[in-house]
């Protein structure tokens, strides 16, 4: 049930932010001050814009071709941007399978399971 509410809010937010009706609402300037008191919507909008900027900056820092950065950022939804922002350096980035076989892989699994391997991450 909660997930459906989230989708309703998303759909509703899309309606309010992206439809021709919003264009009409913006024409009626006197209402903007009234709507500014809708804190929840304001916060969601602000954090999406912030997330977009953060992801954009992170892409540039990670070597994405500047000509491509906008396209790639625009291809992500607001909720994807919010999830990624600030976490791109730790998020899984699929690359190559480790050529780790048999016993070595099992030992790695065990060390990870008992929390020993995570210790390495704390060292630069």
């Amino acid at each position, binding site marked *: 049930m909660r997930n459906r509410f989230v989708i*309703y809010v998303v759909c509703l937010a899309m309606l309010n932010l992206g439809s021709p009706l919003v264009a009409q609402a913006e024409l009626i300037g006197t209402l903007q001050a009234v709507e500014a008191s809708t804190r*929840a919507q304001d916060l969601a909008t602000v954090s999406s814009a912030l997330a977009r900027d953060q992801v954009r900056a992170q892409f540039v820092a990670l070597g994405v071709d500047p000509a491509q950065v906008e396209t790639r950022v625009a291809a992500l939804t*607001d909720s994807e941007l919010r999830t990624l922002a600030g976490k791109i350096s730790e998020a899984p980035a699929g690359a190559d399978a480790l050529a780790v076989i048999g016993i070595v892989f099992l030992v790695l699994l065990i060390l990870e399971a008992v929390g020993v391997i995570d210790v390495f991450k704390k060292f630069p």
Partner: protein
Amino acid sequence: MRPSRAARAAACAAALVLAGCASRGPQLPPVTVSGLPASVELDSTPFFPQQDYQCGPAALATVLVASGAQVSPDELVAEVYLPGRKGSLQAELIAAARARGRLPYLLPPSLDDLLAQLAAGHPVLVLQKTGAGPWPGWHYAVVIGYDVSRDRLLLRSGTESRLEMSPTYFRATWDRADRWAMILLEPGRLPARADFVRYMEAAAGLESVGRLDEAGQAYRAAAQHWPGESLPRLALANIALARGDEATAERELRAALSLAPDDVAARNNLAEVLRSMGCPESARREIAIAARRAEGGPLAAAVASTQRRIDASSGPDGPGCPAD
């Protein structure tokens, strides 16, 4: 020559783990129980041997081409490869699929569901964690089949066009990737055992990035497959509004409300459409109902905002507005 104490300890630990796995017997889920065939191999799935660090483009190209798109891994590099991470993020694979008009459906975290997608003809793109600690070994591969009698999964992975993998190893690597798995669908097609929320999230993603035609097709398929759900109708109304088609939007919203009279979002949106169509009195009536239903819930603020906008337009309904 005697093995060192550490090597013996490691071997013991490994043996224990192996023994633990072996005692469970075959690891593939009982396919006969779930009504799936004993073996599947989607051998027409293309193979793109990956280059260094580029399993993302290779795996994504594989499932994109399998879903009917025309693309090569090289074209995808610019969209999904992060030089600074020497790899590709899951979100960007999803985004690149959407950009080509494909619905990216994320599977529930279930090996049984993965097999069901294979049986329905969909190769499955998976994330695996093949290492640990400072060498996580994140890797994308495409599952193209399984064989119960041999207790094996079949993958296109890296430079291997047909990798046979034990379910034990697959589970070990896939579980640690939070069982992330994705199939791509042409708009209008549904996954096997379609999960309503996951499907609608995928379709809404298409709409979010402006792929209105594809999103509309996906929503229409959802409305047909789940005729009792109001959300696909709400979504179709949103698509109509994005195109300026208020008449269709009103029709879909009323359909949504006939299915779910307590649907706050549909009632709110209907009120807004009525206002926009020059029916402020009808709009006020609808938004009042929505406000009562929304009280104390997550949509209360949004409804309140709409209500303020509607209350600012006074007067009776114009001609052509719904009676009553």
